[in-house]
């Protein structure tokens, strides 16, 4: 009897020890830092946290939001975070130029939601009209897409006006134009002024950068490609759910918790626009799955940025700023 009890104890202990050990390395802890405050434009990642998709892929994910004047980028190279959402392909090009060992592993927005806005009742009705408008633009825009606007469409530098994420200067002047995200600012402006502004998507005029790109460190790709693959796959699943599900409350609750200024109205508008404009499922992403990357397109965008004066011809090999190792596999495609 006594031996039986001992055996039982031993078995129980072994079972407990195995369970504990399994539990301990069942989930890899990773941190994803984003480029902005929590918002529906990052909804797929929040969705994958909220509905347990990351957990099912063996990941315990913490999201570290960005925001105005927050620069999460150095944390990636430094190893304090594992994944970073970048705004477009320019900073990955810079990383290649500065020999920072990071890479883009997935491109979530096939079309950049970056747009120019003019008043619904204002004088600027077409893309070409905008060249005459005083153009509210922040520092980041001036150093990136404005250089392209200037090179490709002769937008004059003299028209630039300061922009600090406040709508006030735009609302104050019917002749003003401003930068914005097609998924957010039109609704913010409608809430403030009653009418949706005219929206001009840069992507419709040749700005072919991917947006909301996922970046990670080269050493993580080399040492633990399985982890990177699981993170990419789970994020794609999260995005499919966030775009298609009737009910995304679980993700939206997390978004609103991280960013209390986010309203249900803005979330609804943003989700609708991401669908309507096919931001995530444009072109080849329809066949290859969300996150798809086409190296030729990366090269074409680089060539445009060279023309805009941001880089020297041949200064970097743009295909080294990205890798297609983890995408184009049809994950989540019916």
């Amino acid at each position: 009897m006594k031996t039986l009890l001992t055996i039982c104890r031993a078995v129980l202990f072994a079972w407990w020890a195995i369970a504990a050990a399994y539990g301990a390395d069942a989930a890899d802890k990773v941190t994803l830092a984003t480029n902005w405050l929590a918002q529906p434009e990052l909804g797929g990642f929040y969705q994958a946290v909220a509905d347990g998709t990351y957990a099912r892929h063996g990941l315990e994910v913490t999201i570290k939001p960005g925001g105005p004047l927050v620069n999460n980028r150095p944390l990636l190279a430094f190893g304090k975070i594992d994944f970073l959402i970048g705004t477009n392909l320019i900073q990955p090009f810079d990383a290649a130029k500065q020999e920072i060992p990071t890479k883009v592993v997935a491109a979530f927005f096939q079309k950049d939601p970056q747009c120019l806005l003019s008043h619904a009742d204002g004088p600027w009705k077409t893309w070409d009209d905008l060249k005459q408008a005083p153009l509210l633009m922040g520092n980041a825009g001036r150093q990136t897409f404005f250089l392209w606007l200037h090179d490709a469409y002769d937008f004059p530098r003299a028209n630039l006006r300061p922009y600090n994420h406040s709508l006030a200067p735009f609302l104050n002047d019917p002749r003003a134009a401003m930068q914005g995200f097609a998924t957010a600012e039109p609704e913010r402006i409608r809430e403030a002024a009653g009418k949706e502004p005219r929206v001009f998507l840069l992507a419709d005029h040749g700005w072919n950068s991917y947006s909301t790109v996922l970046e990670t460190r080269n050493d993580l790709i080399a040492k633990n490609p399985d982890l990177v693959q699981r993170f990419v796959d789970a994020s794609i699943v999260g995005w499919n759910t966030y775009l298609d599900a009737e009910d995304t409350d679980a993700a939206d609750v997390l978004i609103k918790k991280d960013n209390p200024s986010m309203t249900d109205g803005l979330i609804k508008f943003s989700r609708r626009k991401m669908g309507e404009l096919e931001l995530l499922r444009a072109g080849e992403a329809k066949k290859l799955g969300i996150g798809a990357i086409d190296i030729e397109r990366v090269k074409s965008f680089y060539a445009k940025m060279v023309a805009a004066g941001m880089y020297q011809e041949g200064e970097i090999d743009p295909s080294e700023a990205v890798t297609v190792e983890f995408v184009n596999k049809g994950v989540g495609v019916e």
Partner: protein
Amino acid sequence: MNERSLWIRIGAPALVGALLLAAWEAWVRYAELPKYILPTPSEVASTIVAQWAALGPAWMVTLKTMLVALAAAVVLGVALAALFASSRIVETSLFPYAVMLQVTPLVAVAPFIVIWIGWERVWLTQLVCAWIVAFFPILSNTTMGLRSVDPGLRDLFSLYDASRWQRLRLLLAPSALPYFLSGLKISANLALVGAVVAEFVTGTQVDNPGLASTIFTSQLNSDTPLMFAALSLISLTGIVTFFAMEGLSHLLLRRWHESAIGER
């Protein structure tokens, strides 16, 4: 200041600086830190030389904003101080608003200052922002100085029926001068901080970007050596300004004021 104290004044901080830079250089090399995380001082120096064509003009833009804002801070700070010192009621009624101006975060009000001043006048906007940051110490210290006149001397001037001008030139100005100068010392470098911050919050002047623009761009492009190059020019400006203000203060006070006499 005699020769020995001059040597200490210049030599001691220079020695500390050289030691710190050497330690920095050695540590970065030893730890093999990549330059995008922390460049060595020698990398920063060579970046300054290599990028001088862009850094030099940007430096001048920031310097100009700083100096004009400082001049405005002196003129308006002293004028307001005179007004405050002229009557307790004026001072008590207005000082809270001066404090309000001092503590309001520039980042919050900058978009509105841009609208009020007019978005074509970017430089004027930056000037006003830098002035807001810089003027308070001059106002506060000079007011204090004007109030600190020896009551005995005040009575003496009344007794001899001194004119307003005599009172100002011979009594008020000398009493307030040391206070004003210590305010100026603080304000001068606040004007520098203000000029840089103003450029961050109002967007750069399109054709004449200053050092804040360099810092912003280098951050965006992950060009850490260039960022440190811009930061070291700002530091250099601050150090030179500090010593210039010390020198001015010494020059004006050495004959008579306790704070400077001891250093002979």
